[in-house]
């Protein structure tokens, strides 16, 4: 399984905080996972996940979209951080 977490604007736009998907060859990178999520869900997901400034984290580290995924990984999608 791959755990997926959404935060802030992204979470609000798609109405989902956390979900899991089975790992497979079709979701072997973050970019591929994004494609699958957009494919399975609707327009809101496409808009949210295709934002140019979307940030991806893999196991709680920011990574680029071509980062490879393996069984048990935790992926997160969120907008640029605004703490401090």
């Amino acid at each position, binding site marked *: 399984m791959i755990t997926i977490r959404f935060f*802030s604007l992204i979470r609000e736009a798609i109405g989902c905080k956390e979900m899991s998907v089975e790992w497979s060859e079709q979701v072997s990178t973050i970019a591929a996972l994004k494609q699958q999520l957009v494919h399975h869900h609707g327009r809101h997901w496409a808009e949210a996940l295709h934002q140019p400034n979307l940030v991806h*984290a893999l196991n*709680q580290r920011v990574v680029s979209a071509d980062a490879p995924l393996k069984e048990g990984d935790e992926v*997160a999608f*969120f*907008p640029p*951080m*605004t*703490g*401090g």
Partner: protein
Amino acid sequence: MGTVLVQSDDFSVHKAYDELVSAYPGAALATFTGYVRDVGASGDVHQLELEHYPGMTERILRELGQQAERRFELRGWSIIHRYGCLEVNEPIVWVGVVASHRVAAFEGCQFLMDTLKTDAPFWKREHKTDGSAEWVTANDNDTLRRQRW
């Protein structure tokens, strides 16, 4: 050596300061405190909501602290950052840095504030006096300041 606290409760700046001073006496100490402003990015603010990514937040803050410690030869550092709903005038963030000399203390403190702004997974939403709410968007100046380091 440093400490990271990520919490929804209010905190005592004085207690945090005293802990640093007693652990690392006879040095230079720079601190920064950020408070909730009544005028935010989108106008009058009634409350500030801070969402965060539990686990990742603590990890990133600890890594930034360790980076600062090596880079500026800090003796000690402490980061406290709140999440949840904060009232106007409440503290959001406190960073305290101890070094042997003032320049290192100032630089360490600024490095931590500049980097946590863009690297620690927090997201601010301003709840306005008219009842509406708006997510704060990332600030280009903050990104530029981040790149200086």
